[in-house]
């Protein structure tokens, strides 16, 4: 029984509250000019004239470890398009070498006729941890840790192989249009180099700089 009384009082209170608040709203003078009038000036602003920096490009250099074989230097070029502050799309093209020194020493013959390896991939990236670093007491630089994933092809011994790419990197902005970064990536592909189909996981570590334009 007391429960019902509390409920009824609650409903009455709610209705009265509504009545008073609507009465208060009616008391507010309508149709009058607001006392404070913000000065809004007419401005001629042409957005198209503002320089847009959505593209980022630059070279990179590092090491590429061919799974099961030797490690070689790698160099390449990257182009990225930044869609939002979080998401970007990136394409890379890299050149490395098939290091078959060990294979040749052990077997006395070469495995591949063409030692050049080239790869390209296109994919998306996500700025996971944007933040700042403090190299000196007075200097603060923006930085970000990002994740990458993509698809592409790797050309080994003149043969193109479908390749998955995944990686992570760390980027530091020296100025807002120039950055340096280090990146670790794995290239996953299927090859028949040893006579049977097998999955290769090639690890690549690179250092790079890039400019925004």
């Amino acid at each position, binding site marked *: 029984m007391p429960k019902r009384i509390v409920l009824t009082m609650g409903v009455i209170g709610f209705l009265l509250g509504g009545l008073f608040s609507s009465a208060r709203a009616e008391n507010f003078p309508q149709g009058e000019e607001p006392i404070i009038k*913000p*000065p*809004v*000036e*007419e*401005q*001629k*602003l*042409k*957005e198209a*004239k*503002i*320089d*847009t*920096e*959505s593209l980022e490009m630059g070279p990179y250099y590092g090491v590429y470890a061919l799974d099961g074989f030797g490690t070689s230097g790698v160099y390449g070029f990257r182009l990225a*398009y*930044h*869609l*939002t*502050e*979080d998401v970007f*799309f990136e394409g890379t093209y890299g050149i490395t070498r098939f290091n078959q020194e060990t294979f040749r020493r052990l077997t006395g013959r070469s495995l591949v006729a063409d030692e050049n390896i080239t790869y390209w991939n*296109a994919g998306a990236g996500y*700025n996971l*941890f*944007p*933040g*700042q670093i403090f190299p000196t007491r007075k200097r*603060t630089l*923006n930085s*970000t840790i990002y994740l990458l994933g993509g*698809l*592409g*092809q790797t050309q080994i*011994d*003149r*043969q*193109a*192989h*479908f390749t998955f790419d995944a990686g992570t990197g760390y980027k530091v*902005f020296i100025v*807002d*249009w*120039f950055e340096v970064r280090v990146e670790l990536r794995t290239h996953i592909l299927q090859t*028949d180099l040893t*006579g049977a*189909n097998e999955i290769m996981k090639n690890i690549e570590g690179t250092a790079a700089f890039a*400019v*925004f*334009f």
Partner: protein
Amino acid sequence: MNAIRRETRSRLSLLLLCLGPFIAAETAFGEEAYQKASVVEPFLEIHTGPGRSYPVFYVAERGEEILLLKRRTDWYRIRLSNGKEGWVNRADIEKTLLAQGRNKGVMDRIYDDYLADRLELAWGAGTFGGDPSLSVRMTYLLTDVLSLEGGANFVSSDQGSIDLYQGGIVVTPWRWRWLSVSATVGGGIVSATPSSLVVGVTKKTFQEAHAGIGISIPLVRNLFARGDFRNYTVFMSPERTREFQEYGIGLSFRF
């Protein structure tokens, strides 16, 4: 030692040479080149970087003059009259940007702007005759209905790899706000490189003709999701043709 030092120096100067145009571009434009505005919002939070996680280091007041230096994604780099420079979010500065009289939401305006753009760049993945395929395509919109297209497919399989270079005409008769449907016809060349395990076959080039349908869904800003189906007829020899089907999904950008 000297040789190393000399080499390092020459490399450094090469680097500076490469960066030169960018440094020059950064400093060449005077104050007049920038767009000026006075803050309409009650206050404007200025971040140290173009992202929400970079801290706010200064708050500008209504009426303060700002120079819009540049834009990156949703962020504007601005300079205040006291010389401070930082980044403001597009949503925070929207009223100031729209103070020129346009009464339209930011996202609407951006969407319409991109619909007016003519160049579309697409990238996708899928299958071609059952094997994994990657595609790159560029489309130029002649009219709202008619477009020209050029592109390439890269297919890898156990038997070898196929590179396909194609061109065609795209007709988009159905274009709604959230979906557009198109049909395409075209032709091109197919270059097949057999695997080293396949003995006795060398690299060959064939001609192809194709027809297909595709859909495109706007995701955010100038980004679209797309799906494609294409049927390729490859002319293996004057007497023999082979059919391949391509199913693909991907992303495209309007510029």
